[in-house]
């Protein structure tokens, strides 16, 4: 079979891709049948519960579990002593320590023990019987305070070789990117703006709390059901933490009730397995909302200094940013991505960023949608906006003048291939939103955003059933409609209708390793593997047809869902459809399937421009979002509804980050707002419709031109909203969230 030409493929007339078909899991999800993490049970199941530290920082001197163990109905109690000792892998060791504290409790809510009991009531009672002797230590939760030389220290000796001597032990890594000569660039500017910006930590806020059901037998074989973005990674982490072999543990991903990056690691899963091992019974664990907020990963809080030089005609002569992110109690804040992405939308001769990774007495950060990028974009896009407006220039024109384009050497190193930033800016400029009039106390903000996107390890297996339908097995939990997209790409490639393909999420025993659902990788990488698996199946079907016709298999092509002779010289045979070939597969060599395994590259970066109108109440400081439009490059929108949904959802999470959401700590280091009443995410009445414009600049790295779209959409809104509020309030806002008291105070001080 002749190989398809990729660039021709991208320009093809799609039949299924680009349509708005119904998702395969829709009916289960609107009828309540879909089974999420907490919806599974097993015979003889116990209830697992975690005892959490009430202190932000404390030495654990001793734990006495004897009274809890003696309580009727309690079947197992575990502490750190029940887990493997991990010496050679800092990330896994930290993950274990985060799941179950060792020598110290490092944040309010840190797990210190867990019980499994025959009922929730008994489990709760047992937790109260566990006696932990704490020596409370001074704590630090603010990033700048944690960098001070006299700050309470979480760990000694965790700084890597990039950190200069003489800094606080809480500073664990330094990252630097850029090129050119900043001072020389700044000297060419008509104005150099220096500002410091701060953002609060925010939580991903998925509505489904973490949940799992673990079963481990005395032979060490175990099964785990859990809500996760990556069940293969859960398997590998749990195996390491429990000292098991990966093949002994089969993990099945439940339906997942949101993740946004926060379900890319483990919290309860190793604990449930340890409790099941000790009790010999299945153990189910479900977090409460306050446990989710206190002990699962929010993103980092940040403090960022920016220096940008601009000429009076809007040319950016140099950009510098120093970013400080605290990522909670362990190394690994997303500051490196912040430092890489801060100036990505700009074509700059002189650019430099420095990022500092800092630990503090807060829960270990987890990935949150474009981790690290929104805060960096907030700082840079605020400064660019202030400079542009200071010169009386159009902020979209200034961005177009300096925009990164094909051939631009990115601030983080690579040279961009075809990218869509200019297209999003041009679309924004041409949109009626840009020209719409504004009223009193109203303002309009724009900002750009960038995300790298990712490919990664991916496996797809595709079976052709005897009646000519198709099952696609993939290994990435479907977090927002990806099963529909995979079925669409399979149908497109095979030339059959969408309703003949069903996509399932296979367990860890059924496919090779798959990286987690992150980096906006699934539609790109799993889509690519699906297309390649379909091509393998088509090649096999062409071979079977050739066999039936008695001609050479190279003389058979696949077209419109059927094998056909390549031309008049190949012979005169009527086309054999997929269903006809499938029906006789037993007689032509056996069942037919296609599969593809790859570590996918060529994900293709993505850019967006957001535009927002706000109105500020001069009496209360409250901000209302009046109108919002997202312009983003999707490469190729496989299912436009779900592309729009990603644009809208990211924008609204960004609005929450900009206006309401924050982790509030007191001097005691205890989280003061661990419920949704006080950690306020946007609700329907806070918002207008979120308009979307999908641009399609094909990604050269994907057969259909697809780029990931899930993360870029949360990068611009912090700055876009801040730029709008700064205009509608008449004062430049440099700290998030822009909650009413802060906005009011700023307005009064101007």
């Amino acid at each position, binding site marked *: 079979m002749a190989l398809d030409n990729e660039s021709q493929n991208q320009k093809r007339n799609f039949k299924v891709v680009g349509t708005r078909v119904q998702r395969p899991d829709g009916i289960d999800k*609107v009828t309540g049948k879909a089974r999420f993490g907490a919806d599974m049970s097993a015979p003889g199941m116990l209830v697992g519960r975690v005892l959490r530290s009430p202190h932000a920082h404390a030495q654990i001197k001793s734990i006495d579990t004897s009274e809890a163990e003696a309580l009727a109905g309690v079947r197992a109690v575990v502490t750190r002593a029940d887990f493997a000792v991990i010496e050679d892998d800092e990330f896994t060791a930290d993950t274990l320590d985060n799941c179950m504290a060792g020598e110290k409790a490092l944040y309010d809510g840190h797990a210190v023990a867990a019980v499994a009991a025959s009922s929730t009531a008994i489990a709760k009672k047992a937790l109260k019987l566990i006696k932990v002797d704490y020596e409370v230590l001074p704590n630090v939760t603010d990033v700048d305070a944690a960098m001070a030389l006299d700050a309470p220290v979480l760990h000694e000796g965790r700084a890597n070789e990039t950190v200069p001597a003489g800094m606080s032990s809480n500073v664990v890594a330094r990252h630097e990117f850029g090129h050119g000569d900043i001072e020389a660039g700044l000297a060419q500017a008509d104005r150099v703006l220096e500002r410091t910006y701060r953002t609060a930590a925010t939580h991903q806020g998925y509505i489904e709390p973490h949940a799992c059901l673990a079963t481990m037998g005395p032979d060490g074989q175990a099964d785990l059901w859990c809500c996760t973005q990556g069940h293969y990674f859960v398997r590998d982490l749990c195996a390491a933490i429990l000292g098991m072999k990966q093949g002994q543990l089969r993990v099945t991903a439940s339906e997942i009730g949101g993740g946004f990056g926060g379900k890319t690691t483990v919290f309860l899963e190793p604990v449930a397995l340890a409790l099941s091992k000790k009790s010999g019974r299945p153990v189910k664990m479900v977090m409460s909302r306050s446990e989710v907020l206190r002990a699962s990963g929010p993103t980092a809080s940040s403090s960022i200094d920016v220096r940008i030089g601009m000429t009076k005609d809007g040319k950016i002569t140099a950009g510098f940013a120093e970013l400080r992110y605290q990522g909670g109690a362990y190394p690994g804040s997303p500051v490196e991505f912040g430092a890489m992405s801060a100036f990505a939308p700009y074509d700059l001769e002189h650019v430099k960023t420095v990022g500092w990774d800092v630990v503090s007495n807060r829960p270990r950060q987890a990935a949150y949608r474009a981790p690290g990028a929104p805060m960096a974009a907030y700082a840079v896009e605020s400064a660019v906006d202030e400079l542009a407006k200071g010169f009386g220039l159009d902020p979209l024109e200034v961005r177009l003048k300096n925009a990164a384009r094909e051939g631009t050497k990115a601030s983080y190193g690579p040279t961009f291939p075809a990218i869509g930033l200019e297209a999003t800016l041009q679309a924004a400029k041409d949109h009626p939103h840009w020209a719409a009039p504004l009223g009193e106390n109203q303002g309009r903000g724009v900002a750009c955003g960038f995300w790298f996107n990712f490919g990664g390890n991916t496996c797809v297996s595709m079976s052709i059933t005897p009646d000519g339908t198709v099952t696609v097995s993939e290994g990435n939990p479907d977090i927002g409609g990806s099963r529909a997209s995979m079925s669409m790409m399979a149908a497109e490639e095979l030339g059959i209708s969408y309703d003949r393909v069903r996509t399932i999420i296979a367990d860890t025993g059924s496919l090779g390793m798959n990286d987690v659902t992150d980096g906006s990788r699934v539609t790109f990488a799993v889509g690519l593997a699906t297309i390649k698996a379909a091509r393998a199946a088509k090649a096999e079907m062409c071979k079977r047809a050739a066999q039936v016709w008695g001609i050479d298999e190279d003389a058979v092509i696949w077209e419109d869902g059927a094998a056909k002779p390549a031309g008049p010289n190949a012979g005169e045979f009527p086309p054999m459809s997929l269903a006809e070939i499938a029906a006789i597969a037993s007689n032509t060599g056996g069942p037919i399937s296609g599969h593809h395994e790859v570590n996918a590259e060529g994900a293709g970066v993505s850019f967006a421009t957001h535009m927002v109108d706000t109105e500020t109440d001069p009496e209360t400081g409250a901000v209302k979002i009046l109108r919002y439009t997202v312009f983003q490059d999707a490469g190729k929108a496989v299912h436009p509804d779900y592309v729009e949904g990603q644009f809208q959802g990211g924008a609204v999470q960004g609005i929450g980050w900009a206006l309401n959401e924050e982790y509030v700590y007191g001097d005691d280091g205890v989280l003061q707002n661990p419920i*949704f009443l006080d950690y306020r995410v946007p609700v329907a009445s*806070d918002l207008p419709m979120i308009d979307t414009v999908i641009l399609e600049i094909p990604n050269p790295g994907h057969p259909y031109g697809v780029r990931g779209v899930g993360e870029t959409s949360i990068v611009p809104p912090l700055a876009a909203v801040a730029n709008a509020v700064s205009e509608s309030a008449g004062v430049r806002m440099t700290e998030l969230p822009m909650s009413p008291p802060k906005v009011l105070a700023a307005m009064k001080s101007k």
Partner: protein
Amino acid sequence: MSKVHVSTTINGDPVEYLCEADETLLDVLRDRIGLTGSKEGCGTGDCGACSVTVGGRLVCSCLMLGAEAEGQEVETIEGMADGENLHPLQQKFIDHAALQCGICTPGLLVAAKSLLENNPDPTEEEARYWLAGNLCRCTGYDKIIRAVMDAAQEMRGAS
């Protein structure tokens, strides 16, 4: 503490159960009756994922005791479709792609049905305020509101 005996009606079926005096209706539905369509997102009445109606009134089942359902008519997401026929709201949620992960969907559908029973012709603003007690983190609410408004229009035409 002895358990409480409760006789009630759930989705039209007569149901009896024993529950603890301090057990929520949500826990009864999920853990005793096996109706896991209602979800616990917060346990404090802030997210609406556990929305059901009791005697026609929209409530968070996490804020009500199982014992309080005695003699009541409880309706959950599992009772919304009529056999194979989806309720118009359910169909419109699928048509408009008004769900991504789907965890908030049962609560939103129950709340939206209650809205349209109380107000068959809501403005967009009325729909947004009625549904303000139901958190969705994936969609930004745009497609949810469109689905509800479209279902309302279709249901008005049908009646």
